[in-house]
């Protein structure tokens, strides 16, 4: 009974919401707190054949230089799928994690022929690496 009363007190709910938000943020941060060095290896093995990290160099996939934080499908001159063009995505830790888990599930109609990275740590690492691309 005493616990129920405490839960009903008006200042508790904001605190709980804050705690939930903090946990969610921590999870989100955890997704980008991977090791960029390990992420480079993950990138090379899984992405590097089709994507360059050099500015302006497209392969079967577009250059990923400077893509972190940018809107999806914005590299000039590269022919993206309509699905990605209209996705409205901005590549941050959350959207990248979702996309890299299941590219064709996250953006149905995406041209990218990749089944996704099942390992959460590998996703975190490669996202950490991507976040370094294009940094001065």
């Amino acid at each position, binding site marked *: 009974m005493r616990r129920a009363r405490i839960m009903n007190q008006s200042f508790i709910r904001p605190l709980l919401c804050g705690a939930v938000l903090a946990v969610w943020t921590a999870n989100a941060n955890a997704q980008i707190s991977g090791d960029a060095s390990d992420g*480079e*290896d993950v990138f*090379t*093995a*899984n992405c*590097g*054949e*089709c994507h*360059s990290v*050099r500015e302006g*160099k*497209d*392969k*079967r996939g577009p250059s990923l230089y400077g893509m972190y934080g940018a809107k999806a499908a914005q590299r000039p*001159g*590269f*022919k993206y799928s309509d699905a990605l063009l209209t996705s409205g995505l901005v590549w941050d830790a959350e959207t990248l994690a979702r996309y890299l888990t299941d590219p*064709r599930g996250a953006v149905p109609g995406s041209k990218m*022929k990749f*089944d996704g990275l099942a390992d959460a740590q590998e996703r975190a690492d490669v996202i950490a690496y991507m976040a370094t691309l294009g940094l001065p």
Partner: protein
Amino acid sequence: MSHTRFSLWRPWQRTLAGFAVGAALAIGVSPVQALPSFARQTGMECASCHVGGFGPQLTPAGTLFKMGGYTDSDGKDGKIPLSAMVIGSYTHTREDQDPEPGLKANNNLKMNEAALFFAGRVTDSIGGFAELNYDGIEHKTAVDRVDFRYARALRLDGRDATFGISVNNTPSSSDPFNTLPASIFPYTDSPAAVGTGESATLINGGLEHRVLGAVAYANYGGLYGELGSYGSLSPSLQSKIGQGRDYQRLSMGSNAYWRLAWMQDLKTQAFHVGVFGWSADVQPDRTVASPKDRYHDVGVDAGYQLLGNREHMLTLNGSYVREHRTDIEGAKSSLRETRLNASYYYQQTWGASIGRFATTGSDPAAATRGQMLQLDWTPWGKENANPPAFLSLANLRLGLQYWNYNEFGGLSSGAKDHNTTYLFSWLSF
């Protein structure tokens, strides 16, 4: 015959050569990467699709590119689908050999061959390559390998699937792995030495370039299959394309090439295992009505690639082919070929490969066994390894092979007289 070939040269080879020169000039001012036409088409480096940064051993990405009908691209237009290559070499054998025309008994410094390729996508679903080859030993020009494909990629039940048809002139060349006879290591050998011996199965180049066939193929979730049939070109057409006149006849529909494999690409490693075969009835001389030689070639093969982060790469490839032949008089014979190869590449640049080859059969004189070692250096073909500006479209492999024979032509005695040191330079652009 040579007159026919010379006449043929005049109208279209000159045009092609002129086109090649024009194309080369056009390419020469292009800022695109220093790579042959498939690399230009895709924007990918040679090392993306080839182990060691140089063809033809395919990585999983290269396997998928081939299955996809050579059609993947970086989405940009205006790529010229032409490439060329030149192979030069020096060959020393332990003892002098009986020289073929155009060769000395020993210590041959030669331009093995020069080739011009059409290689590229035609539409979103059609692509391929055709090779026009100049033989630097015999000084002949001929159409070499041809492979044009129609391919479609689908998503079925949550898995990738590819269906296609390959029209090619070399049985087993449609296969996307480097374990079948048409594409197994070594990828170059000396024209002035004895190679893997004088006996070979029909599927191991027996009718290559003299036939044309259609092979339907499919890949579904790593299960890969092919089924096709080949027919001989007419002697007249063979002559026109520089292959001379061979009067053997293989009728389309009277033979079946097939292949089944299971493959997995785990990104840091990949493997496949499979079986294959070719059953063919070959009329020895089409000008004489006669029974046919019957060939039944069946093989097993497997390959493993440790890819990691591409700093250290290890590959293991092997195949075993058994051929049963019944000739027109009903006599039966058999032949067996075993190939086992391993290679290691450091930074996709420095390579060391070893191989074991063995051909044996019911005829003791067919037996040839030995080992070979190859060391090679491929300085370019990687994203951060470009050639000098004046070679801005080229890739290069310099290599050294050593062949050791335990048995040759059924004889152990004297086999080592054929031991060969082969230095080669392989330039493509």
